[in-house]
């Protein structure tokens, strides 16, 4: 260091330089005069307080190498090199051991590899190896020495390149020494997964190739997971699954790969791919079980793709009744399509309807929700009558249709008043009238008869006899069911007597009841 740590004007202006110089001086107990690395070392050995000295040197090294982001001045680094080379190697080892924090130690060592002059690097390397009790064979020491010697001996610009190579090498060495807890193999699964992509180039093997090779040779290390991540990031999950399918049944790698990609996150990513690969999703679903349902429900709610929604509905239904709590949680969502889909899912998954939920959603203002509720509620005998009683008074055709279809299997007494009232409503959909008339024909409620007469009779004559309503399908149907079910009732009998006088073949047919049966 041209023997001296005199700052030059340029150095004095640099942040941290003053502190570094002051510490160098304090360390050697030299407040005046020329401070040299040799004198510092001599001062250290004189004071006899090895531990304190080691800590002081460690602090000094840290301050100089890490304290200033712009890097220390060359003259300070030169002084530091002198100090390192002057120290007893044992003291340097103690200095290295003084830092217990592993990440801090690595940070410092990487800064040393990057900034210390080449002539001090070898000493630091040896000191670190001894401090960490690393197996540092003399052959490797010799190779480092040769690299350093070459960097020092070459002319520019080769010297700079050789120095860069040496520094990279040492950084690699330090990193491997300071980050590995031991020399015995670690489990690969404990290592963090590499997230960044590998650089493209002639010496970068394709991720696919690595994956295939790993399955073939049974490898499950970090390199495999990095490649897998790359394939998956490129949308190749289906490819991965294809490889797994072709793998031997007992392949540990295939099983481990499946476990890695079989995550809800990956499932979500696949489902959001347009168009998504159903076979790949199915393969993932097999390994995920119910944990996939939450993601699938989320996608069912958010997906704008009809095919995706249809697929999800179908696959979610396969989970069966155990999916119920998750679906019910989604019913809190106020959006109509969410509620409708959840109700449809409850039905297709075989979850029995319950009265409170049915009541709640039958009261919905949205007919689409009411319809799904009806469909669901009708499946359960426990809620069927309640649902029919409510549904048959609904004003929406989409709700009425399945209700009436279901009522063909038996119209509960509780539903008769509702249907009778609705049937005579002018806005009751005409296409349902004949069916409704036939349904009411099986009921013994007087309300049903009133509704039937409404269609079969058009008031009375001046003589008080019932007048037949104008001929219509509803009229014929009403005549038919009255003839079949109410013939003994006084008003019905009078009407039927009038009908019997008719020459209309349709009315005659209805009276014979065939029409009613046919409908």
């Amino acid at each position: 260091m041209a023997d001296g740590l005199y700052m030059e004007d340029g150095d004095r202006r640099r942040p941290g330089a003053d502190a570094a110089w002051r510490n160098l001086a304090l360390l050697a107990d030299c407040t005046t005069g020329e401070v040299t690395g040799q004198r510092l070392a001599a001062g250290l050995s004189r004071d006899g307080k090895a531990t304190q000295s080691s800590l002081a040197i460690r602090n000094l090294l840290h301050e100089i190498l890490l304290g200033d982001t712009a890097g220390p001045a060359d003259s300070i680094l030169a002084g530091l090199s002198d100090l390192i080379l002057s120290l007893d190697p044992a003291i340097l080892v103690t200095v290295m051991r003084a830092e217990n924090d592993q990440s801090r130690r690595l940070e410092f060592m990487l800064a040393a590899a990057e900034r210390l002059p080449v002539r001090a690097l070898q000493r630091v390397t040896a000191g670190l190896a001894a401090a960490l009790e690393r197996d540092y064979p003399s052959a490797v020491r010799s190779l480092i020495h040769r690299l350093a010697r070459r960097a020092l001996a070459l002319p520019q610009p080769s010297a700079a390149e050789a120095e860069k190579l040496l520094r990279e090498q040492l950084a690699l060495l330090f990193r491997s020494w300071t980050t590995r807890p031991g020399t015995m193999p670690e489990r690969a699964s404990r290592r963090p997964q590499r997230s960044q992509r590998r650089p493209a180039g002639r010496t970068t093997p394709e991720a696919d190739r690595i994956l295939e090779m790993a399955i073939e040779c049974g490898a499950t290390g970090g390199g495999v997971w990095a490649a897998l991540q790359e394939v998956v990031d490129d949308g190749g999950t289906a490819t991965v699954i294809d490889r797994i399918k072709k793998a031997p049944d007992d392949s540990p790698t295939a099983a481990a790969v499946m476990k890695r990609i079989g995550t809800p996150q990956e499932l979500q990513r696949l489902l959001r791919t347009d168009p998504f690969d159903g076979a790949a999703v199915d393969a993932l679903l097999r390994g995920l079980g119910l944990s996939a349902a939450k993601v699938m429900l989320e996608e069912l709610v958010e997906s704008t793709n009809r095919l995706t929604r249809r697929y999800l509905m179908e696959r979610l239904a396969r989970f069966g009744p155990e999916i119920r709590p998750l679906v019910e949680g989604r019913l809190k969502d106020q959006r109509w399509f969410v509620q409708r889909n959840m109700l449809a899912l409850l039905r297709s998954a075989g979850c029995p309807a319950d009265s409170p939920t049915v009541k709640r959603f039958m009261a919905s203002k949205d007919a689409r929700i009411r319809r799904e509720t009806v469909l669901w509620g009708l499946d359960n005998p426990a809620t069927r009558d309640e649902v029919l009683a409510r549904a048959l008074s609904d004003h929406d055709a989409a709700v009425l249709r399945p209700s009436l279809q279901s009522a063909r299997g038996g119209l509960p007494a509780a539903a008769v008043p509702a249907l009778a009232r609705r049937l005579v409503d002018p806005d009751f959909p005409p296409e349902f009238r004949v069916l409704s008339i036939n349904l009411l024909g099986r009921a013994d409620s007087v309300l049903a008869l009133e509704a039937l007469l409404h269609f079969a009779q058009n008031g009375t004559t001046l003589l008080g006899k019932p007048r037949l309503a104008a001929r219509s399908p509803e009229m014929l149907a009403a005549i038919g069911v009255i003839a079949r079910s109410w013939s003994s009732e006084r008003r019905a009998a009078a009407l039927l007597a009038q009908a019997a006088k008719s020459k209309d073949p349709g009315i005659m047919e209805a009276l014979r009841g065939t029409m009613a049966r046919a409908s």
Partner: protein
Amino acid sequence: MTVTPGHDQSPETPGRTPAPAESHHAAEVEAVEWIFQCVAGGLRLPVAEAECVVNTIYAEQVWGDRVAFSLQPVPDPLRFPPVHAVNVAALAMLLAGSQQFDAPSIRRVGVAALLHDIGMARVPAESWRKPGRLTAEQRDHVKRHPAQGAALLLDAHDSLDLAAVVAYEHHLRMDGSGYPRLTYARSAHFVSRLVQVCDVFCALSTDRPYRKAWPLDVILSFLDERSGFEFHPTIAAALTSLIRDRPAPAAT
């Protein structure tokens, strides 16, 4: 930098048996021997140290004053794996340089070549050092070394993906023969082909317990004949021209 086999059998003097070349990569061989011992002992692969070997060879090839590069002699059959590894690495890096690979890529090729046979560290020594024919079991052991090498390299460090591929594929031939058997049909990586040719060249140039080293002209003819069938034609041609075009070999 050009190549000279350790047992210098120049084309001009076929059949001549020269003295072994001076070992100028002794430290590299010693370091690789230590690496192999670590792996054989079940320890983690010392990746940084392997790169150190490659960097040193690279530095010598780029900035050294040696005119001709000689393959290292094998003083003892037991030391064949580390010596062979250093030889293949050095030759592969020269060959990669001739193929216009950039500096980092050359060093990556070097690491891959250095570790191409690392799986052998897990193969019982009696399977590869015995002079006679191998038993079926021994042959099976040896044939597992590509898979074992690839597995331990993939497990050792993310950066060793190329090395793992080369370790796995360096016995796959252009015509689809060789080993290991692939579940998924694919052709070998270019660097695997490159290391394969260097591997064969270095192996044939070296005395083994079961045969003597081949004369250089025979090796070159062998490479020419099998180019396109066993070896990648471009690489085989590049290697043979690298050797044929070398200056007169230095005294050994």
